[in-house]
């Protein structure tokens, strides 16, 4: 054959692609509705989205929104948890309710022949959950075990530390609740949150798939027009902190085969006007397998299986991150190459070829994301939840194409700031420290529970803390005396907790460094109550909190050891 195969072939004539137009209307109770027909597959998907998420949780009850999302499918007025799962799965329907930092989304989808059932189940889980006590109890216990499990995973530890470093007191600082947060979640708190947040004037309903518009409007009226509007919470969020300098944190995970590296900084919220230049900049720098950091750290240096940068832009703020999992001995080399690439993108203009490649990628993959019902749903839901322009999907590709090399240089200069990034490394601290200590004046070291290691370096023994402790509890401003008796047998602790309302038995207790964590089961006013005790010991004093599911917030205490 005499064809010239040396050069890549020219493309065929372009095939136009248009996103179907959505229609939008509002019910009298304030519920916004978006309909997007997609007749080529016999499926219907509904998403009911709420403009409240995990960041809106009370500061002392983090995890409440996530718990509510999980519990909405664990029992309703019409169905027990099991009946709901059986009905949905018998019809092949997918039900999912999940929360993110900013939103809660309930979704039901399946074959369009089951449209009646899809509507029925969505209304049931959104409008009529009952939060049964026994299911909540199981949720609490399973979530606590899952939280322990997460701590064995290096990527979780890295993400947790990064959020804390970037966000300080801002609600985005927390990516997972503590065990105490979970213990505090009550049926009452869930029902209260449900009545305040799950209201039509805080929601948007999306219906996507194979349906006739008249029929679907009628179903929406039938299912949701009786739903009462409520008063929307006004939540005031603190500003995300401004970073002023570079920080280095190491999370010690002894025995790690790798180092998980994250370099992170605060960027902008999702609806920021710099979105498109940032998207293109991130594509050139590190979003994919042909981007600069991947080509450098993996393809040239072979330090890692993958090295990337990413933008995680949310409602109130966002992050820019560079990440890689590298073999332990090349941690310092990997950091050096990351900083080289970060410096280069912010000081030198990207080439015309790089710019064109990045833009071609972003415009080209766009239709692929719209091939499936779930993909199209994600596009339209995000557009509306983040308040993006009504022609956002139609103009996405032209907005990407309009980005110039100057735009990229400008946003890189503004948002990629190696001098103020938070460096987080998860790995064996003994091997990490010598490799990272030149990047900041001080390196903060944490254990996998999130405790600073100076604290964990010191430790107390069961023998040292056994004895009688006089505890003063702060219960809603009044000082309540309580006695804690600790006994030890070798390293095992047991004991009692004596209060004015009744006495409790310490059912489990463990020491980690200078921290005591214990659980007491007490009879109080005829009821069995589980109390969780968390304290830090310094010599003969201890301070911490005692919490229970009955209390909205744990009670702080101070204690001294009786001689």
């Amino acid at each position, binding site marked *: *054959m005499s064809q010239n*195969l*040396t*050069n*890549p*072939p*020219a*493309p*065929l*004539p*372009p*095939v*136009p*692609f248009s996103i179907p137009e959505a229609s939008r209307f509002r019910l009298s109770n304030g519920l916004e509705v978006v309909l997007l027909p997609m007749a080529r*597959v*016999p*499926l219907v998907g509904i998403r009911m989205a709420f403009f409240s998420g995990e960041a809106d949780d009370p500061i002392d009850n983090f995890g409440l929104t996530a718990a509510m999302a999980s519990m909405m499918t664990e029992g309703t007025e019409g169905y027990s*948890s*099991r009946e709901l*799962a059986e009905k949905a*799965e*018998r019809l*092949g329907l997918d039900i999912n309710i999940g929360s993110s930092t900013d939103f809660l989304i309930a979704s039901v989808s*399946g*074959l369009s*022949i089951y449209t009646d059932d899809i509507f029925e189940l969505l209304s049931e889980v959104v409008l009529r959950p009952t939060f049964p006590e026994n299911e909540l109890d*199981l949720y609490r*216990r*399973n979530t606590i*075990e*899952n939280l*322990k*499990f997460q701590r064995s995973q*290096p990527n979780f530890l890295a993400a947790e530390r990064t959020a804390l470093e970037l966000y300080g007191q801002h609600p985005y600082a927390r990516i997972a609740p503590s065990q105490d947060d979970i213990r505090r979640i009550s049926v009452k708190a869930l029902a209260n949150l449900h009545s305040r947040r799950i209201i039509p004037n805080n929601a948007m309903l999306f219906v996507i798939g194979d349906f006739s518009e008249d029929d679907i409007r009628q179903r929406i009226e039938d299912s949701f027009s009786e739903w009462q509007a409520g008063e929307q919470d006004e939540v005031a969020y603190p500003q995300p902190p401004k970073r002023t300098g570079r920080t280095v944190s190491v999370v010690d995970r002894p*025995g790690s085969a*790798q180092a998980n590296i994250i370099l992170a900084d605060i960027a902008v919220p999702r609806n920021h006007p710099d979105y498109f230049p940032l998207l293109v900049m991130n594509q050139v720098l590190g979003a*994919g*397998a*042909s981007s600069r950091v991947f080509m450098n750290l*993996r*393809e040239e240096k*072979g330090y*890692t*299986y993958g090295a990337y940068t990413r933008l995680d832009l949310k409602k109130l703020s966002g992050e820019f991150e560079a990440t890689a*999992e*590298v*073999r332990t001995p090349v941690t310092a080399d990997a950091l050096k190459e990351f900083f080289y690439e970060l410096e280069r993108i912010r000081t030198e203009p990207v080439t015309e070829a790089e710019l*064109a*490649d990045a833009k*071609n*990628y*972003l*415009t*080209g993959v*766009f*239709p*692929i994301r*719209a*091939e*499936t019902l779930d993909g199209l749903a994600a596009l339209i839901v995000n557009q509306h939840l983040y308040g993006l322009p009504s022609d956002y999907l139609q103009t996405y590709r032209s907005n990407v194409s309009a980005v110039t090399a100057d735009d990229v240089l400008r946003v890189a200069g503004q948002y990629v700031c190696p001098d103020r990034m938070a460096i987080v490394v998860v790995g064996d601290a003994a091997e990490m420290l010598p490799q990272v200590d030149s990047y900041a004046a001080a390196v903060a070291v944490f254990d996998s529970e999130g405790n600073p290691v100076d604290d964990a370096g010191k430790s107390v023994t069961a023998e040292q803390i056994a004895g009688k402790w006089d505890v003063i509890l702060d219960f809603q401003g009044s000082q309540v005396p309580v006695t804690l008796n600790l006994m030890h047998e070798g390293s095992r602790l047991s004991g009692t907790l004596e209060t004015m309302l009744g006495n409790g038995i310490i059912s489990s207790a463990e020491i980690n460094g200078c921290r005591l964590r214990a659980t007491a089961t007490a009879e109080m006013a005829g009821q069995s109550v589980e109390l969780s005790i968390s304290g830090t010991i310094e010599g003969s004093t201890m301070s911490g909190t005692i919490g229970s599911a009955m209390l909205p917030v744990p009670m702080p205490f101070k204690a001294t050891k009786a001689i």
Partner: protein
Amino acid sequence: MSESFSLSPLEIEEYRLGNGLRVTLNPDPAVPVVAIAVYYDVGSRNERPGRTGFAHLFEHMMFQGSQNVPKAGHFQYIMKAGGTMNGTTSSERTNYYETLPANQLPLGLWLEADRMRSLAVTQENLDNQREAVKEEKRLRYDNQPYGQIFDIINQMIYRNFANAHSTIGSMDDLDAATVEDVREFFRLYYAPNNAVLSISGAFDSITAKELVNRFFGDISSQAAPPPVDVSEPPEVAENYKKYEDNLAPFPAFLIGWKIPPRRTRKFYALYLAGKLLYDGESSRLYQKLVKGDESVIQLFGFTDERRGPSSIFVGAIPKPEKDLSQIRETIMKEIADLAGRGPSPEEMQKLHNQLLNDTVRMRQSSMNRAQAIAEFTLYDGDPTGVNRELEELLAITPDEIRSAVAEYLETENRALLDVVPGK
């Protein structure tokens, strides 16, 4: 109800080039996207002792450049055209695939043809990709809690080396590989007569055939690779093993059984039995263990579908202080119930609807269609199997499920791996 629902077959054309390359075309103009999947008939099943990890190493080598495509150029050409791509390796095959805007079909075909014709097997590429594979092993297996348990249980289930060893392979074997070994592997297994090219999406068949012929037509065929013997005795290799996992926070266990090959009625029956046992919140074991006894943190199960003897697994991470043997007893009791009474009518209805739903969802994406068609072509020599699989599954009777569970799962012939957290 579901009786009113019928699914039209996918339009598929199949033909073969003079050099033996099997080609399938599945045009569907709905979205201007085209998916290309190239499946090579080589996986870990083809590897000999001392030469493990080669099939997977090749998946990396195939991105290292060829006569007209520079090192890592494959990624770049695809991405700058607005496409996505990847490759994966299993016991059965190695696949490479890309989804592109419809007008970039020529580019995708040219790239796949160039590396099939002229892969650059150099010492430098080999050294570099060996390191990338080692890093992948650390990331996916060595540094993850429970990361190695599936490789271990496969060695307990299978007696035949071709089936038992891991896809990631031995790092010593990879270190011992010479450029000559790697070149020979390429010549044998990456020949057009050992591959399937599958195209789905928005394209014109006449244009596609011209392009396929232009780019692939002159690649030379090779002698057929040596046949693979994956035969197995019915007995598992090892019934019990305790494994200390230094990264695991909790004890866990995994039970595995050896079952008949894919696409047999018995395999289908066991695949459906698995769905009833562990798939979803209404499944028997979820309701018994996660809900009823409240004894496990995580429950999981799946089938490993192979052309030869296949396998099915159930595993759990129990809650602390829970008696592992009691949880296993509950699992075996539920299996005994399924083996005795078979699935209920409600369970059969559930399977029916879930199979329809899964099939409709799978077909939405050009890439899923291209991959499914390539698999049927490679394994069965018949791409239209993709249109019959749903019917074949729906034809499985409750009694077939019952008797397959009795024969293959309700038996002492199984492998149990106990994972204990290390110190």
